[in-house]
């Protein structure tokens, strides 16, 4: 076989028959990757281990709206003809429950045992543009500063990323508003776009090039390139939601006492679902558990949420007691103070918080309401 760097240079576009995705998956498995991809479970398209193309939700799509998600049959056999589901990739990079280690009494001291298992080596198949942005955000959070998170880094550095550019927009999608899609940003090893009869594969990295060199494919034609661009434009045009981001942090900062916060608090369940499904919400808590005899203890880290009162429990009471304070904290962090903290938006426009809110609270609607009555104060007539 030819030198992969010559045959499939980075940035080049290739046309791959759909059935060859199976070959690609087999090669990844041979290289020792555990492939995580979309599959149908419990009435939704989730991310879990996949082994062959028949595991993928071929011919299925989803209908999404505030507080509602339904699987539907498509009229075709598309492999990736749906938007994002309830899971995000963060559950594989930042596990929801993780034992940081165990300790045992040892005479006068303690003996500490760190987690023994080697970290998994994942290949993610079907990562959408908004999700690549979300992973880049998590990279900054967990690996960007002086304190690098070893649990995240071990999973992230071993990761093989296969992106899929969306050819179908979901009912709660607004990546086009956030500038996070549907075109995939750099970072993935391979970037797929699905056409009716084939995939167009863009080589993202040397590693991606080496893999594609082993897969039968032909150079993409001008028509293929045009079809990809047309699909991306159509997806961007058919976003289910929109968010006007003009001057957004300043808008929110000057409206911290807007009456809309109280109105949304009447509906908010403070259940934390929005933070759990958000692909960038990274907060966790650390618990120490001891056994009955007091000889062993375990330190466990779990996903936490700013919607719990324990999250701000300080000096005998929670700081953010009201639902209003907690919803406002979450929304202003995502859309405003994230910029101050990490230099980007904390929202990538995936729409999960809208779909998976049990009562359909829609952050694009909340921002719109505040923008339309900019400057209103609680207690004033509007």
């Amino acid at each position, binding site marked *: 076989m030819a030198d992969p760097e010559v045959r499939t240079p980075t940035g080049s576009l290739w046309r791959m028959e759909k059935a060859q995705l199976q070959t690609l998956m087999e090669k990844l498995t041979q290289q020792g990757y555990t492939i995580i991809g979309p599959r149908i479970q419990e009435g939704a398209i989730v991310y879990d281990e996949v082994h062959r193309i028949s595991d993928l939700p071929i011919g299925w799509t989803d209908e999404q709206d505030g507080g509602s998600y339904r699987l539907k049959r498509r009229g075709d056999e598309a492999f990736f003809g749906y938007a994002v589901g309830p899971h995000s990739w963060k559950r594989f990079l930042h596990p*929801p429950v993780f034992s940081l280690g165990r300790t045992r009494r040892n005479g006068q001291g303690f003996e500490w045992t760190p987690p023994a298992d080697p970290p998994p080596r994942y290949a993610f198949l079907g990562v959408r543009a908004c999700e690549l942005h979300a992973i880049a955000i998590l990279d900054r959070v967990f690996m960007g500063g002086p304190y690098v998170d070893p649990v995240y880094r071990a999973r992230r550095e071993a990761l093989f990323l296969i992106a899929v550019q969306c050819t179908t927009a979901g009912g709660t999608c607004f990546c086009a508003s956030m500038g996070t899609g549907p075109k995939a940003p750099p970072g993935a090893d391979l970037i797929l776009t699905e056409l009716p009869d084939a995939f167009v594969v863009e080589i993202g990295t040397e590693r991606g090039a080496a893999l594609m060199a082993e897969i039968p494919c032909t150079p993409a034609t001008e028509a293929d390139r045009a079809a990809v661009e047309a699909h991306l434009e159509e997806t961007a045009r058919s976003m289910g939601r929109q968010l006007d981001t003009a001057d957004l942090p300043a808008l929110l900062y000057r409206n911290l006492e807007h009456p809309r916060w109280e109105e949304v608090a*009447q*509906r908010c369940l403070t*259940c934390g679902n929005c933070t759990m499904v958000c692909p960038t919400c990274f907060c966790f808590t650390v618990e*120490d*558990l001891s056994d009955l*005899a007091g000889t062993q203890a375990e330190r466990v880290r779990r996903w936490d949420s700013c919607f719990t009162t324990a999250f701000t429990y300080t000096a005998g009471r929670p700081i953010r007691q009201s639902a209003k304070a907690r919803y406002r904290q979450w929304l202003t962090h995502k859309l405003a103070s994230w910029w101050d903290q990490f230099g980007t938006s904390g929202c990538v426009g995936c729409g999960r918080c809208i779909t998976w809110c049990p009562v359909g609270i829609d952050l694009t609607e909340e921002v719109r309401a505040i923008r339309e009555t900019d400057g209103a104060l609680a207690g004033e007539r509007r």
Partner: protein
Amino acid sequence: MARRRKPKLAVWKFASCDGCQLTLLDCEEELLTLAGEVEIAYFLEASRAVVRGPYDLSLVEGSISTPEQVDQIREIRRQSRFLVAIGACATAGGIQALRNFADVRGFLELVYARPEYIKTLEKSLPASAYVPVDFELRGCPIGKGPLLELISAFLNGRRPNIPNHSVCIECKRRGTVCVMVAQGIPCLGPVTQAGCGALCPAYRRGCYGCFGPMETPNPASLGDWLLARGMSSPDLVRLFRTFNAYAPAFREAGERYAEAANPDRSS
């Protein structure tokens, strides 16, 4: 670690089904360790051997539903350093608190041949209605894990890691797909306290609220959402009135939809 003497554990029963006490006996693997760490001083379901009080830790199961029980719970409080109410009955009045929504004399006359022999209270109430309670362990029944965590925390002098947040957080951590959003199944998870490990939604059933209301619950928002999607008011009343029907947040929600179902009866 040298402990001066083993703490004395007592397990008490009031109006209840015994399921929560049974959870303690269900701790098969841990039971011997537990017996090594505490003196099981009063636990009639396990042993008729009784050690006199005072007790270091009293686990109280069941609701207070008779005048005699009021005296008993007060005496137990006097005898106990820590008093922990366990289960929906002891923390909210239990399923038998359904009688609180009607005149108890009506039930007495219906059930008993000689109702005048029966001494009962108007309402079935949690232990906290009569005595100060140090901690409430929720559930119908309580879970083995949280019970062991509570006892371990007590023995090691630390605060128990028992969350007050929603069941949803447990569902999402374990990767269960939301049954309400994806299948339209009514679910009390968003207003119910975690602790069960989100058991029912993992088996594609809605949560029925057996751990009672979560911290800062908003059942009116959830109920109105279900109402707008076709659930009837009587069904909503039944949803909120089960094992924790008389827990304040569920009681208010039940009353809200009972009034909606029978507007002429609302005062």
